[in-house]
């Protein structure tokens, strides 16, 4: 088997598994801060009940995010040594800043956030929640900066085949960074709002109608209803930015094989790379042009213009439709949810639909990242480094072995994660806090 393909599958598996958890923790940190501040202000125990439940979800997700993230930092070296050799002068400082400004901060104050309640003054506990939320967002910022630079590299020069930084402000605020950052932060917010609504709805359906559960459900639905239109706007802006800098990706997303003036919007099709055509195409005339160029007769470049420098069409095309489809579903469900709750309160049907949407954010986020990352191929860093050039000398059989190990591990952990979430959700909202261990029979320690 091809070692490069195996290394790509391994990295894709790793990063797909990893992104599930930061997608939750980035926004959940801020939601926890919101719950905590509401509690501090109102003294209403329902807010704290919600906090206590969701901080456990945070802890679990955070642990999975950390361990899978550590794995990735090593895989740069084990599988893609060419990446750091060519662009290490740019990627290195950005990654270093992530570790220095974010990782230590969140890892340290997470302990106070999880175990500090009762040991430190309430205000310090709220501050720790703020610092953890800030840390996860800072981490997201730096990694999005690096990823965006890989899509739209600027502020560098190449000397002796190695990339050197010339303008750090340009590198950090590279053309696609603000759009990607906004898109990802909103995606995280949506993932958390549907997770909160879905898991709370599941508890509600099981008969737990306690205020903490209802509060979390409503918070989730309302947050989703607010964020989804903003996300659609941000996604559109990101698309226009991509059209400007990576037109081949847009061509693949829209299934446009040949340059067209005033193209339609392809709702569904089966792209066929061999004949460079779409089969079974369903399309709305002129709408594609309206969305992409904001005019009825704008020109959109087709795949055939780009020679070999274009991504495979089918995966990008399908992933894009999955992402948009889930987004539309989110809009319908959250708005219907807000309307229903205002009219009639929580109903069993609403709760069932919300349970069905629990992990919808994961689906959309993964699909979105597949669009943008596969859409960058064959480049690892646009115009600078091809993916194949970055691969290391490790034998295919070795990679296959580690790949199988990772896949088995990730499948098992994902299952354990979801089962544990369900187990946590089965317990009533207000109950004895569980300890990091179980019941404590050792000699009691007097409080300080």
């Amino acid at each position, binding site marked *: 088997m091809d070692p490069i393909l195996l290394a790509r599958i391994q990295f894709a598996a790793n990063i797909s598994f990893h992104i599930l958890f930061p997608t939750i923790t980035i926004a959940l940190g801020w939601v926890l801060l919101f719950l905590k501040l509401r509690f501090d202000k109102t003294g209403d125990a329902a807010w704290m009940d919600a*906090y206590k439940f969701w*901080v*456990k979800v945070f802890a*679990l997700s*955070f*642990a*999975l995010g*950390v*361990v*899978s*993230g*550590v*794995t990735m*930092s*090593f895989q740069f*070296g084990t599988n893609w*040594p060419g990446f*750091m*050799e060519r662009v*290490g*002068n*740019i990627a*290195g*400082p950005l990654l*270093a*800043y992530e*570790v220095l*400004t974010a*990782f*230590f*901060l969140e*890892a*340290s*104050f997470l*302990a106070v956030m*999880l*175990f500090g*309640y*009762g*040991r*430190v003054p309430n205000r310090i506990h709220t501050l720790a929640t703020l610092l953890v939320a800030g840390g996860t967002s800072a981490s997201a910022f730096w990694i999005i900066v690096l990823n965006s630079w890989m899509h739209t590299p600027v502020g560098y020069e190449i000397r002796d085949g190695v990339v*050197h930084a010339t303008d750090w402000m340009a590198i950090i605020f590279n053309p696609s960074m603000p759009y990607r950052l906004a898109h990802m932060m909103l995606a995280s917010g949506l993932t958390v709002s549907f997770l909160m609504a879905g898991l709370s709805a599941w508890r509600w359906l099981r008969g737990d109608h306690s205020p903490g559960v209802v509060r979390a459900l409503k918070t989730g639905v309302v947050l989703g209803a607010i964020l989804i239109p903003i996300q659609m706007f941000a996604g559109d802006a990101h698309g226009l930015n991509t059209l400007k800098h990576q037109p081949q990706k847009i061509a693949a997303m829209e299934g446009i094989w040949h340059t067209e003036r005033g193209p339609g919007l392809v709702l569904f099709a089966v792209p066929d790379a061999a004949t460079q055509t779409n089969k079974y195409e369903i399309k709305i005339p002129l709408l594609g042009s309206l969305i992409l160029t904001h005019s009825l007769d704008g020109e959109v470049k087709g795949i055939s213009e780009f020679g070999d420098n274009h991504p495979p069409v089918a995966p990008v095309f399908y992933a894009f439709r999955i992402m948009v489809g889930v987004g539309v579903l989110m809009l319908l469900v959250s708005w219907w949810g807000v309307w229903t709750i205002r009219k009639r309160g929580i109903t069993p049907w609403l709760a069932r639909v919300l349970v069905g949407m629990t992990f919808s954010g994961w689906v959309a986020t993964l699909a979105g990242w597949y669009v943008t990352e596969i859409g960058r191929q064959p480049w690892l860093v646009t115009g600078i480094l091809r993916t194949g050039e970055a691969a290391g000398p*490790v034998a295919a059989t*070795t990679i296959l072995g580690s790949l199988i*190990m*990772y896949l088995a*591990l990730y499948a098992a952990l994902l299952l*354990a994660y979801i089962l*544990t979430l369900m*187990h*946590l959700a089965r317990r009533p909202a207000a109950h004895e806090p*569980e*300890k*990091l*261990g*179980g019941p*404590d029979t*050792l*000699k009691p*320690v007097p409080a300080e």
Partner: protein
Amino acid sequence: MDTLPPGAWLPITFAVLMAVAMLLYAVLDGFDLGVGILLRATEDEPTRDRMVASIGPFWDANETWLVLGVGLLLVAFPAAHGLILTALYIPVALMLMGLILRGVAFEFRAKAPAPQKPRWDMVFQGGSIIAAFSQGWMLGSYILGFAEGWLAFGFAMLTGVFTVSAYALIGACWLVWRGEGALQLLAAQWARRALYISWAGVLVVSATTPIVSPRIFERWFSLPELLGLAPIPLATGGLFLLLHIFLRRFPRVDNSLDWVPFAATAAIFVLCFQGLAYSFWPYVVPEKLTIFAAASAPESLKIILVGALAVLPMIGLYTFFIWRIFGGKARELRYY
């Protein structure tokens, strides 16, 4: 090493930073992993809970030193990073699996249904052992300059076992410091057992490095260097003796010196690390690549250094704060 290349201060600074991060990792996550290795040495579930509670607030930040260490290798010495990590592909993959298992077991053993808890304890211990063993494997392989063949492999396996024992030692000493009552007595017992294996490990590694590398032999066993270096092995030996005596006379009447074994073990880690660093300087890949040849462009190193100098004191400050909050004898940890 008579004349340094111009601009050498940058690679040297980064080599020192990286070494400090790795050393801090070995000491800090060393005791976490050590506690994990020892977790199932007791059948008693509450004792296990207390053991986990003693490291619960720290392990995450401790593991971050590994990310910083390998991150600095990655950003400051990209060429070496590629060489080292591809040469160590299998132990790295194993270590990551171990760290993943250990890290998630923290959360799962507390949150999964009670009947599954013993299973997560096994995952916790297994992950800790795998991670420690593969780190030792990497160390052995690194010492031999990534040599291949059965002998080199055997040596790496041996350093793997020694590392498990060294981590068990520092983990047990941590529990002597942070534990009480029955747990503390158990920990002292575990520490004694791990002590002798670790002692043997240090001797074997110290004997092997000069044998396999004439350059390292030259560096240690020529005059006057030998006299200047003698304090390193002497102090290490003295600390082992101190541990031996202290642990044999345990328990003491009062708890005021419970921290001594941990501090002594940490000091042994520092001395061993210093010995290794002296042996391999200025190579980042033994006998192949020096830190000067492997270093990134100065403009990139400088911008990282600015950030590191600004942020590291803050990291130190809040790490101190966290250690204060969770200082003293380990108490049970409650979520929220």
